[in-house]
């Protein structure tokens, strides 16, 4: 039975996917994926690791053979054996996490091999075009370099240019910045933004939420082997409708850490906070302030007065839970410490306190409040903008 494309003829739909399933042996990765990508659209695909985002993308150009369902590209059933998958792939560029530039070729050759061998362009034509594309991605000067002589960011930009050299109708990005140093992420995202602005159709699997929000027309949230929720970025990021989406969005907005007793791993905690801050592009001063407030608060909680008694008390109260939250709209960072009610206070102050820690915390927070809610002691601190 050959399925017909329901939207065949409606010219603006480039890719249509119905009931796409993919399993590797026993493991079901994609259960039932249904989606449409229109020309000129930029789609971001987000979701927790291992939910089939990359597999979905690789099924689109048949790098992975789907186990079931249908894919139409330009109204053609790509799973129909009569259709040449190689011809399909020429229309769909792909950018890989690990760049995958041809290591034995110069940058220019990487960009010309496809057009010359596959599109039957003359070498001259292909080189002229390649040089234009290299200029577009900012690497006009490196055409004779070999891949291993370029930085990761540069390699990825060449990879994007290589895709463009084939004049694809869509580019599939498979986590294009995951393998990059943080310092190189933005140069790659910059190029993609530029393509988006030029109206290139793109599907991007990414963990860069801010980028996803900025650049995409629609966002697919994938979970449980399906597109769990989709919608415009504002909808997904600010008002997710379904539970898992909400949890995911919350997790990427907030940093949570549990401190069981006084033997907590301070460095692990700090590294977690720093990573979180990195994702949200916190200025360095803000990160330092945040770390200091956390550290001083914990100092007060555990060390003031009779340390042994306090430690017992904290562990008796079920430990401390720390949540660091960031709201983009308000550009506001909130620190939340909670513990069992028996602890009574987190900012433990005794007669011997010199008040220095307290003063430090107060100096760096806009508001600092401790109260008891629902059987828990809650300490809420809103960070002040550094330098203000």
């Amino acid at each position, binding site marked *: 039975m050959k399925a017909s494309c329901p939207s065949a003829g409606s010219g603006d739909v480039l890719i249509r996917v119905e009931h796409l399933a993919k399993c590797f042996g026993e493991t079901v990765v994609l259960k039932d994926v249904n989606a449409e990508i229109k020309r000129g659209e930029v789609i971001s695909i987000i979701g927790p690791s291992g939910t089939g985002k990359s597999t979905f993308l690789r099924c689109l150009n048949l790098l992975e053979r789907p186990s079931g369902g249908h894919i139409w590209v330009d109204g053609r059933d790509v799973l129909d054996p009569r259709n040449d998958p*190689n*011809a399909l*792939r020429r229309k769909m560029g792909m950018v890989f996490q690990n760049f*995958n530039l041809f290591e*034995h070729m110069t940058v220019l050759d990487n960009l010309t091999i496809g057009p010359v061998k596959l599109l039957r362009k003359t070498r001259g034509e292909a080189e002229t075009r390649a040089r234009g594309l290299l200029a577009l991605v900012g690497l006009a000067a490196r055409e004779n370099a*070999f891949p291993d002589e370029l930085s990761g960011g540069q390699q990825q930009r060449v990879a994007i240019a290589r895709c463009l050299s084939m004049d694809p109708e869509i580019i599939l990005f498979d986590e294009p910045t995951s393998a990059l140093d943080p310092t190189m992420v933005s140069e790659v995202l910059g190029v993609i933004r530029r393509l988006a602005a030029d109206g290139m159709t793109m599907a991007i699997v990414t963990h860069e939420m801010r980028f996803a929000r900025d650049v995409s027309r629609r966002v697919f949230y994938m979970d449980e082997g399906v597109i769990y929720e989709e919608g415009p970025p504002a909808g997904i990021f600010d008002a997710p409708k379904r539970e898992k989406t909400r949890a995911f969005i919350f997790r990427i907005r907030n940093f949570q850490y549990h401190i069981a007793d006084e033997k907590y791993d301070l460095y692990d905690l700090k590294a977690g906070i720093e990573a979180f801050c990195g994702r949200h592009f916190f200025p360095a001063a803000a990160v330092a302030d945040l770390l200091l407030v956390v550290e001083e608060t914990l100092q007060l909680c555990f060390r003031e007065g009779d340390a042994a008694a306090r430690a017992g008390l904290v562990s008796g109260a079920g430990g401390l839970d720390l949540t660091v939250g960031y709201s983009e709209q308000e550009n506001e960072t909130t620190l939340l410490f909670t513990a069992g009610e028996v602890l009574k206070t987190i900012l433990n102050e005794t007669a011997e306190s010199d008040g220095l820690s307290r003063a430090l915390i107060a100096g760096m927070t806009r508001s600092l409040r401790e109260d008891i809610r629902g059987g828990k002691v809650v300490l809420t601190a809103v960070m002040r903008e550094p330098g203000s």
Partner: protein
Amino acid sequence: MKRFAWIAAGGLLAGACLSCSPAGKPAGVASLEDLKTARFGVVSGTVADQIVLNRFPEATFGYYPSPLDACLAVLKGKETAAAYDEPILRNIQAQNPGLKILPEMISVDQYAMAVRPDDRELKDAADALLAELRADGRYDEMKARWFPEKGKPAPMPEMAWEAPNGILDFGTCAVTEPFSFIDDSRRVVGFDVELASRLARRLGRELRIHNMEFGAMIPSLLSGKTDLIAACITVTEERAKSVLFTEPVYRGGIAAAVRDSAVAGAAPAFSGLADVAEKRIAVMVGSTHDKHITANFPRAEILRMDNAPDMLAALKSGKCEAAIFDANAGRLYREDDPSLAVLAEKIFIENLGFGFADVRLRDAFNAFLGELRATGELDEIRRKWEGDDGAAAIPDLPEGGENGRLRIATTTVDIPFSYTREEKPCGIDLELALRFAARQGLKPQIQPLPFASLIAAVASGKADLICDGITITEERAKQVAFSDAYYQSAADALTLKEHLDGGNRPEETGSKPDIAEAVIGAMTGSTGEALVRERFPRAGIHLFDDVMDAVAALKARKVDYVITAYTTALQAARANPDLAVLPEEYNQAWAAIAVHKDNPRLLERINAVLEEMRDDGTLEEIISHWVRPDGSPYVKTEVPRASGWPALRVAVAANREPMGFIEDNKIVGLDPELIERIAFKLGRPVVFTDMKFSALIAALESGKADVVCSNLTATEERRRRVAFSEGYYVNPQVMMTLKDRPPAAGAALRPSWPARLKKSFVDNIIREKRYLLIWNGLKVTALIAVLSALLGTLLGALICLMRMGRNRALKAFAKAYISLLRGIPQVVLLMLMFYVVFAPLDVSGVAVAIFTFALNFAAYVSEMFRAGIESVKRGQVEAGVAMGFSRFRTFVHIVLPQAVQRILPVFKGEFVALVKMTAIVGYIAVQDLTKASDIIRSRTFDAFFPLVMVAVLYFILAWGLTSLLEMIRVRVNPKRRRP
């Protein structure tokens, strides 16, 4: 820096080849005092160590289970001396050459028999017997019987007697040879046993022997179980307290056995094949010699080798003590190398035959052989090749071929049967085979094969005929059809002269120690030759037919000295100012005129004339005409010619100025003038025949000449063949040498190593155009290496494809192929291919070699390819595919270029291994570089040059081919091509 390394390597090589320092002789032990601080081997449990310590407090000890073990340790040099009872040591020494027992003993003891203290009667009887034996000489007889100088004790004499007086119980310990031991027929015998027997006979009692532990003898005596005990029992005070000793039966003591320095190096002289029965004997693998030696010398260590040169090399390098050759070959080797000698002649005699695959062909050959035998040609052929002096050749034969071809398999390195010279086939077998082929109208094709492969070659149909001095055996006859015997061959065992001479080699001390080791040139069959062989057995001899050749060799430093007659030497020195004639005269033999033995009348008349001439001074005058030590010109006088009849036919070797030489096409000189004058007196005209010196005697014997007057010395040996006149001139043998090499300086007179290297180079490479052999071998090696590498690479790619593909059957096949090929030794695979797989097909050895190496190479490179391909990251393939390339084009454009880059360095290594591996193709009759060196070595017996040359050529070949690969690698390196 590089050049330095080369020089260093060259130096090392030269050093390794040319330095052959004689092993230092261990200092001989002459007297007991030399053993003051020595290490002694003693038997554990004896008191010998205490006795030695009493004498030499500084001695140390090694403990052995038996005196024999202690003595063997001495022989092997582990201990300096063995200390034990002298008679027993003497017994061991007699059976183990190389030991010496020091005359002075460490302690002196007496051995006696013992009886119970109350049995004085028996003691008296024993003493009386001893006195009697001593008196009538039978004691000495016994001593000679039981203590021989050499070898095992003689058997015990049979004795029988009436025993009316009961039994004599005799206790002994039968591990004290020669006093008491168990002989081959399991009887207890020995010196003490014989004594006891004689005593029992004397007493009329039956002798009942109780063999027991040494320590049990005295208790058994005291408890009455025995009446008499004896077994090398030392008389001690302590023992005398409990037993009654007879008079001493033997005086001995603790002696020291040391290594006999005369046979230093523990190399006992060999006198026959039995002496090497437990030594190493080299034989040609698969030969009848192999079978014979294996069957008859089960205790020998048999080295089975592929060819004669290897066997000779093994013999000369001390890797074996004897080597078995066919008698003819052995003779030629001996002539070539004076250090070889015959150990045993005619070990056995065999019939040699040709082997055929086809009985009809065999029958045709038998008929052909019968004809040759009838016409005497067979004998002629045999004689020609046995006496091959370098000029023998197979006559030109008509080019056959109208009836097909004849594939002849043979080793081509087996003198005198089958060998090559100047790339031409030589030898009895090859001549027979080629003549046969010509007769049959067959085109001969000679396939060189190792001896061991010959039978297989004909059995598998690879050859029509095999010939190589092959012995006809029943076993072989099962596989091939043998012709009638065309030759009877005896096997000889060769060994090094020094083994034969053993320790008795006279020391050539005195005035000319250097000559003794030099290479000396002599005229074939001359007195000088005999003289050198006799006086300087260790010198090398090069024989020449012409003194001029000898002088040329001297000047070319191919020989160190030339021995020749004084006059000849004088003359040579006149022509060559750089020659010196040494003053020492090696003999004072008279030159005489020789006539046929059956012609005493002529001899008488010649003697009469000589007598007359000596008396009237004519002889002196003639001599003065020609022997002119001052170098002034000869005096030539016209001798009148008699007109009588018949003419006197004079044989002369006219190459010895001034004795006899050719001037203005006339034979002149001392000898001609003398004989002309004699002939004139006899009234007969002279007809001279100029011939080789070595042919003179034969000419006389065969009646081709009446007299020989050619400075011929009257030696004993020659006297047996011809009759000599009175001597007419004393022409002593002297040595010539080059002036720049005065022997008095005592410098090494062997040619300097560059000279030897040059000689070796000329002999091995230039002579007989041997470079052509090497060049052709090199081409074959290169061809096999390159073609099998190409084919193997393609095949390897195919195997790799199967191995990496999805088809399970192909994958399993590829896996099996790889592990199978990698698990079979190349040489075995090669022979399998040649003798089994391709046996029914007519495929040349080169093709089989190429195919086999390709198969093997494929197994290795396919895995190499797989590793190379798998090392290319998966992402590269994905990127290619995602771009729109098909899988195949992705492989071609993306994967392959990267894989090749990674494979090439490993591939290079494997390729070099392949080049070197081709050295084994000689096994299947392919004449490659290695085989070429084998062939050369078989002719020159020189290992150095052919092997070094070939090693260098292999290196150059491998290096050149890998440089080519390296060039390719650089070219395919993308970074090199960057604009």
